[in-house]
């Protein structure tokens, strides 16, 4: 008995010694894990978790223990910024995958910049996210000034609308997108009946009345699925079948659930491809299903891709640093300058401000509550 206790303590000491020889480094995620948009935010975290699981062995070979540190920003800029400060103070975090909302990304990346923590965003589309030229802010998705015109092109080209009603949700995301769409539509001489904002989450009766009066051929809503879904439900219940077009904020299976029987004639442009549209995504989807007992969606795949970009950046920086844990500054530079392969959404390299040199936008269609790919558009930022 005494012998086993002794050998156990020896074993424990050995294990402890072994652990201390390892350096722990972390990849953080910053996305809404609670609240109205947690459906999307959880996808991002889960996608990143799968990437971390895949890369653990490679880091192990360098004597580095890799961990994921998920942070919850509740889709709120103030909470996100506070979490960013927490991330900055944890020296073992070398990079961040996040955020979901541009309104959160803008202050959070500014809070992380002084400590040179690099962000790779799987979702933020607002122009300002990279227009500020921060050294740490990168994104693998297309910008609003690509997404807005793509939505406008779809409205004029495919839907053949000549009169459009634009609504936005009064956030940095929704307003920015609505502005880009309005600009692109006006350039094509399409009549824009109005571009109005609403923060309302439940009662859209006055807007529905206005739409009935104005009879637009198409409605563009720059907003998030939990608001737009309720709007569409009420619109359809009022007997209006006009197509509703939106941005990637609609990219959630919850949209059809909330809109219920009205989940018809809805289109949205998204930077997150439907899993079926990504040839390489089958293994990922199966992996996701097995790990989380849930179906992978677009943002899960982009969370995975963003995490892979960050991890490949860290690996490259570690190799350049003599196979030791790199500094945050080295990681930041490695991500901005690197070129990343083996991703679901193709290869990635960033321009000087952190925009992807070429990206793809997808237009999805919701009909009878089912999502299918309508078309896809390649986009390139003006700055290369």
């Amino acid at each position, binding site marked *: 008995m005494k012998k086993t206790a002794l050998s156990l303590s020896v074993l424990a000491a050995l294990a402890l010694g072994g652990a201390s020889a390892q350096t722990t480094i972390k990849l953080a995620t910053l996305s809404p894990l609670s*609240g*109205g948009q947690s459906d999307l935010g959880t996808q991002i975290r889960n996608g990143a978790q799968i990437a971390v699981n895949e890369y653990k062995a490679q880091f192990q070979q360098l004597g580095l223990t890799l961990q994921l540190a998920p942070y919850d920003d509740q889709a709120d800029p103030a909470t996100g910024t506070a979490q960013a400060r927490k991330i900055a103070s944890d020296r073992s975090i070398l990079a961040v995958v996040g955020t979901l909302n541009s309104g959160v990304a803008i202050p959070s990346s500014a809070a992380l910049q002084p400590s040179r923590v690099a962000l790779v965003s799987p979702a933020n589309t607002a122009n300002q996210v990279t227009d500020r030229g921060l050294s740490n802010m990168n994104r693998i998705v297309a910008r609003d000034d690509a997404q807005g015109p793509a939505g406008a092109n779809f409205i004029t080209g495919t839907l053949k609308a000549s009169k459009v009603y634009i609504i936005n949700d009064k956030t940095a995301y929704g307003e920015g997108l609505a502005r880009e769409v309005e600009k692109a539509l006006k350039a094509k001489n399409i009549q824009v009946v109005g571009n109005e904002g*609403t*923060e*309302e989450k439940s*009662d859209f009766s006055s807007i529905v009345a206005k739409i*009935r009066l104005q009879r637009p051929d198409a409605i563009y809503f720059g907003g998030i699925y939990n608001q737009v879904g309720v709007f569409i439900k009420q619109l359809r219940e*009022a007997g209006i079948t006009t197509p509703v077009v939106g941005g990637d904020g609609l990219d959630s299976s*919850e949209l059809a*659930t909330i809109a219920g029987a009205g989940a018809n004639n809805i289109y949205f442009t998204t930077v997150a491809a439907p899993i079926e549209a990504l040839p390489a995504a089958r293994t990922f989807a199966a992996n996701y299903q097995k790990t989380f007992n849930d179906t992978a969606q677009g943002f899960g795949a982009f969370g995975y891709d963003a995490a892979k970009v960050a991890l490949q950046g860290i690996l490259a920086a570690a190799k350049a640093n003599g196979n030791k844990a790199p500094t945050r500054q080295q990681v930041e530079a490695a991500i901005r300058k690197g070129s990343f392969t083996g991703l679901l959404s193709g290869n990635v390299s960033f321009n000087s401000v952190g925009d992807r040199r070429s990206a793809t936008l997808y237009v999805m269609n919701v009909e009878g509550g089912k999502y299918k790919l309508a078309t896809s558009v390649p986009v390139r930022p003006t700055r290369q």
Partner: protein
Amino acid sequence: MDLATLLPFIVNVIVGGLVLGFVYAIIALGYTMVYGVLQLINFAHSEVFVTGAVVGFEVFRVLAPNPMNGYLKLLIALVAAMIVSGLLNVLIERLAYRPLRNAPKLVPLITALGVSLILQDVLRIIEGFQGRFDLTYTLPPGFAGRFCAAESSCAGLGNFLRTIGVDLQLKDVILIVVSLLSLAVLNYLVNRTRLGKAIRAVAQDRVTAGLMGIDANRMISATFLIGGALGGISGVLFGMKFGTVNAYSGFDPGIISFTAAVLGGIGSIPGAVLGGLVLGVIQNLIGVTNVFGGLLGIANLEAIDASYQRIGAFIVLVLILIFKPTGLLGKSNVEKV
């Protein structure tokens, strides 16, 4: 744009505002009843109301595959929500307000806010365990359909509404009928029964009522029960009207309904109803101001879009409080010496 298209639009905006106003009115009654008796603003009422909405969702969800009559389902949902919300409100009073009955006024106000936050998260946990966040009502078929869509199925009032261009859904009509019924029952309860008389006596002077043999605590519990039951009804109506609720849905309608109660004169039952209706209509009218601005060519009006509809309600409140501090139907409170 000619008058023939504009008139039904204006009528619809006002009717839509009234429907919305009825939801606010029933919620406002919950605030006003408790205030009338305890001079306490029950800030947890918005969560009591959401609890009713959640109960309604669960009833509709469980009964959805059942082929029973839609109105029967609604009745079950309403009764279940009334019971749960009513009892919850009694419990809140017993645990959070009664021990503080003699504390300064500010103290129960703060516990009310605390209870409100606790309830939000409890609701979220309960639904979150089942993997739900936004609860989408599955209404019986036909409820979302148009009221009096076909000429043949209409008679009397329905036909009249149709000719003037009012577009209502069946659920809007149900909402108005249920609101009016609950109002009538409440009115009878408060003004015509012994219970109502006792509640009014406690509201007027708790100590003297006690000396007359009225158990003040029981009457206060009864008030909370009635207020909570009204909250339950309004929750189900809210869920039915707007389609989805989540644990945090109570804040906005709660604050507007509280405003409605103050606007009408807090403590006054007809005042709460009037306040709710006025706010509903004002909100919808402000939401469409830009249309009239566009027609009249006034750029300043054109800039007032739907994003201002909330602010409008509060501006009205401020104006009322400046010019008639007791609210529309409130009586001034003479301090007794």
